[in-house]
Every structure is written in structure tokens, then in C-alpha cells.
């Protein structure tokens, strides 16, 4: 369960978030949908505890990210935007490194790594160094790294960017599987079709705020548009902020 209330953040003069509110329930896939620069990544980075909120609160599994970041980190699996592997380590070593840092060791470590390697079809290249991996292979390993400690919350930032059809399919299958296991999955995207296909609930983010929030049907009803794309466009079409606020 992720609960976000009035989250605000500025970087110097730029106001990245101006009060983000939404809730992502367990056993559901929640999508943060919004144009580039809307504040999706900043929101997710605060939830991952790598950035601190300027105002407002965020709780993951009932734990406040500002109060107990370590408690949050133990429960979450993270796939940041454009994240990369260690090229000199094999796929298996990359996964084991994260598992160990999350506190696994001994037989439990080996078991967890073997299980996720098998689940994501990594075996054929598990012991090869990550340097020459294809985009799809890299994604599988990065995903395995995020899932190896069996987190109950999954946070993915634009995970399908630049992926081919097969890799996207693996990713979707895994996300759905975690959802069906009762996991809380939150992912961001600027591609509406993807969000429409994957998500149980959608929060549309624009200009550092959640402008509409609900199931696809609820959003269509609220915006008065039959088509989700029209709904998206009407939702994000807020008046542009004055340039002096941005510079």
C-alpha cells in the first residue's frame, strides 16, 4: 500500500511537485501517467527514499519514508529509469549483490537467486558478464535484482522505455504475476496505451500535481471523454505556468 499526500519538492527555483496525492492499493497495478517533466520520476524517487520530500508525506506499507527510510527500502523493489548493471559482473553476481545488500545470505541467498533466475529465463546467460547484454537481457537482470528479496511493493520508473516486444512481454507478465501475489505495483509511463492495458488504477500527473485519479472508466466519466486518450489530453491541459516560476 502506498499513500501519498500533498507531496511537494523543489530543485532550486524549479517546482517539480506541487502537492501530489494518490493511493496505490495492494494487489493492484497503479500507473502514474503524465507527459515528460510532469513529476512522475520525482514522486517515485521520493517513494524509493533516494530523494527527500519538501513537504507532504509518503507512506509505503504503512511506513513513512521520511521517518524510517530503511524500513521502506527493505520492502520495496526498485527499477529506476535508465538503470544499468555492473558490466564486469555476471548476471547472477549482479543479482546476488543486491540480494546480499538487502540482507540475504547463506542458503537463502542461493535459493532466492536461483528462483528468480529461473522465473525470468536468465539461465542461458546467467554466468556471462553483463557487458555485452542486449537491452532485453539487461532488463531481465535489472528486474530480477529488484525482485530477488521478494518485496511486497514494486516501484518501476518508465520500465518499458526502449524495450522490444519480447522484453516488454516478459515485464508485463512479471508485473501481473506480482500483482496476483498481492503485491502493490506502482509504475510510471508517458505512454497511454501501455497504462491502459496494464493498470487497474491510473493517476494522471501534470505540472507537479495529480489531476485525475481512478480506474480507466472513472477517468473517462470524470473528464466526459469516451476515449482514454482524449481524457488524458483534457486532464493535462492545464494553463501553462508562468515562465518566471520555472527559470
Amino acid at each position, binding site marked *: 500500500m502506498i499513500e501519498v499526500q500533498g507531496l511537494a519538492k523543489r*530543485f532550486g527555483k524549479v517546482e517539480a511537485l506541487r502537492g501530489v496525492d494518490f493511493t496505490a492499493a495492494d494487489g493492484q497495478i497503479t500507473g502514474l501517467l503524465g507527459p515528460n517533466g510532469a513529476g512522475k520520476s520525482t514522486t517515485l*524517487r521520493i517513494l*524509493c*527514499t*533516494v*530523494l*527527500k520530500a519538501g513537504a507532504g508525506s509518503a507512506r509505503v506499507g504503512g511506513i513513512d519514508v521520511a521517518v524510517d527510510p*530503511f524500513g521502506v*527500502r*527493505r520492502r*520495496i523493489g*526498485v*527499477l*529506476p529509469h*535508465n*538503470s*544499468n*548493471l*555492473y*558490466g*564486469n*559482473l555476471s548476471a547472477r*553476481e549482479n543479482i546476488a*549483490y*543486491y540480494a*546480499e*545488500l*538487502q*540482507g540475504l*545470505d547463506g542458503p537463502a541467498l542461493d535459493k532466492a537467486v536461483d528462483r528468480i533466475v529461473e522465473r525470468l529465463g536468465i539461465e542461458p546467460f546467467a554466468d556471462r*558478464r553483463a557487458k555485452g547484454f542486449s537491452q532485453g537481457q539487461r532488463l531481465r537482470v*535489472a528486474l530480477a*535484482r*529488484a525482485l530477488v528479496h521478494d518485496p511486497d511493493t514494486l516501484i518501476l520508473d518508465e520500465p518499458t522505455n526502449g524495450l522490444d516486444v519480447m522484453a516488454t512481454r516478459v515485464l508485463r507478465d512479471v508485473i501481473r504475476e506480482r500483482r496476483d501475489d498481492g503485491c502493490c505495483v506502482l509504475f510510471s509511463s508517458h505512454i497511454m496505451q501501455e497504462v491502459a492495458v496494464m493498470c487497474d488504477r491510473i493517476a494522471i500527473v501534470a505540472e507537479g500535481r495529480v489531476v485525475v485519479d481512478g480506474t480507466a472508466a472513472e477517468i473517462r466519466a470524470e473528464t466526459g471523454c469516451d476515449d482514454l486518450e482524449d481524457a488524458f489530453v483534457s486532464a493535462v491541459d492545464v494553463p501553462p505556468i508562468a515562465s518566471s516560476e520555472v527559470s
Partner: protein
Amino acid sequence: MAGLGVVFRKEFVDSLRERRSVVSALVFGPLLGPVLFVLLTSYAVNLQIDETEQPIEVPVVGGEGAANLMAHLFRRQIDADHDRFADLDSLRDAVRTGDVDVGLVVDSEFGDALRTGEPARLWIVADMANNTARRSISRLRSALGEYGMGIGIHRLALRGIDPNLATPVAVLTDDVSTPSGRAVLLLGMMTYFLLFSTLLGGTQVAIDTTAGERERGSLEPLLALAVSRSELVWGKIGVTFVFMAVSLAICIVSFAIAVQFLPLAKIGMTANLDPLVCAGIYVSMLPFAALGAGVMTIVASYTKSFREAQTYTSIAMVVPPLPIILVVLNPVQPSVPLMLVPSLSQHLLVTELVKGEIFDPLHLVVSAATTVAVGVACGLATVRRYRSEALLV
């Protein structure tokens, strides 16, 4: 602190597999210094040996009237060349342009003056601003002086006067330096190379584990794991320290081997680098690896890319050896206050060891404590840096 061990192990394996890091730690860092040192010193030593033994050729104008003088110069390994220049002006031009190091002009009245007991005139034609000619000039000058002195002694003896009367005082020098003490003049350079190769040995690792990780995009997911920032940072610094320590060890051993090939004995020096002295050097210098690991890590952690980090670490690499250069220009005796200055303290301790002397143990303790303290301070600053959001923004 289990995370520290995990980070250390991973960064160690990662760095060992990175050819750039291994080559700079095991090859470039530790071997470049000694090789350069041996080449430079043996060149300098050979030059010194050669020049005293090799005959030099000096063009002479008007030497026909001074056969005895020419014979004397010949015995002093100075060959007179009478045919090259016909007159003073052409000789002066050749010296001015640097074609000739030094020339000699014999006065046309030379023979007559000698016979009548007047001072017989000789001119040394030289460019005193020409450094390379200095040695030839002084050889010629002293050979001429000897010749004149010999004639003077004969004259006094012929007149029944003891020539010693013309030498009222005898100034002698009692050189108490030992051959290994004299070698310090050369081996003083060694500490500079040791410090440098220590830094060089771990800098690639420091960059790879910080700026490199950031540039490759592996940092952000790492920071979202349940491991403290201080464990992350100390694990990384630990690996850099190990690489620097290994680089230092190889550098000392290769110096010990390299000095065997230097013709030090020919110039009255011996290099005292037996295993015990090497071990002492290692113990004295090891704290510097802790400082180097801290400094290079904090510098690299403030940069965003490998290239940027290389630029700033190369600048940082120049700073630590600076105190040594000051001491070379203005030598000092080891003392407790000086032991508070990292790199300078290591230089002074190593110099004592190379001289074959034992340093005050207090000096070693003060030197190690302050040097490690600087390293730890840099480490703590890096932890702070890793706790700040600026690392990701």
C-alpha cells in the same frame, strides 16, 4: 556492518576484472617510477663518470709558441686543436653560437714573458651563460692553473726558496658522509615516486566505484537498498586502499631491484634497500595509502563522469607530493611538528631509513596518525556526500 563486507567484495572483484584498474595498480603505477628513476639517475651518473674520464678537444689560437703547455694539457686529457681557428674573432664567434664549448688563446708574447718572468697571458674564451660548457671550462681552467703553479714552484726552488712558503695555509675537507648518506641525494627522489605510484595505483578504482558507477546508471538503484551510505562508502574506499597498498608494495620492491642496476659505487654511493629497510619504508608509507584512498574517493565523488573525475583526480594527484619539493629546495631535519604534515612526514621517515638511521618511534606514530586522520576525514566527507540528494540530481 555486513553490508560493508558485501560492498568491499563486490567492488574488489569488479575492479580486478577492469583491466584499466589492474594495469594502473600493478604495472603503470609501481613500475613507471623505478624505471624512470633508474634511467634518469644512470644517465646522470654516467655523465658524471664520463666527463671526468673522456678527453675533450679545445681549439687553440697561437699555441705554436707554447709547446710545453700543450703537452701538459694533453696529459690532462685536453687535446689542443691548432688548425680549426686562425684568429681570435672566428673562435669567439664559434663560442658565441655554441659550436665550441671553450677555446684557448695564447698571447703572441707568451714565450718571451715566461722567459723574462713576466705574467704570461692566456685567454679562456667562453660563454659563461652556457650551462653545458661549464664542466669543460672548469677542466681547462684547473689544468692551466696547475701548469702555472708547477712553473712557480720550479722558479722558487731554483732560487733556493722552499715552495711551501707560498702555501701558508692548507685547507682540507673531512667528509664524514657515509656512502648510503650520499645516496640520499639521489634516493630522496624515490619517495616522490612512491607517493605518486601509491596514488596512481588506486585512482582508477576510486573513479570507477564512484563517478563511474554514477555515470553508468548503477548508483540510483543501489541507493534504494537497505544498506547504509557509510557502509557503501567505506567498502569502496577499502578497495581503493587495498589497490594503493599493493601498488606501493610493488613499487618498493621494484625500487629495491632497480637500484642494483645503478652504478652508484662508481660515484661513491651505496643504496641501502635491504628487505628490512624495505619493510620499514612500507610501514612508514602505508598510512599514505589511507589518505590517498580518502582524497581520491571524495574528489571523484564530486564529479559526474569518468572523464571529469580523471581531470580532477589528476589535479589532486599533484598536491600531496608538493611538500617534498619544498623540502628538496630547503632541507629540514625531522621533528614532531613536521610529522604532522602528510607526505612530508613520510618523506622524512623514508629518508632516515635510506640513510641507514633509525627514526624516533614517536615520529612514526605521529606521522601515521595524522595521515590516516586526513584519510578518514575525507571518508566521512564522502559519506556526507552520499547522504545528500545532490549525488543524484
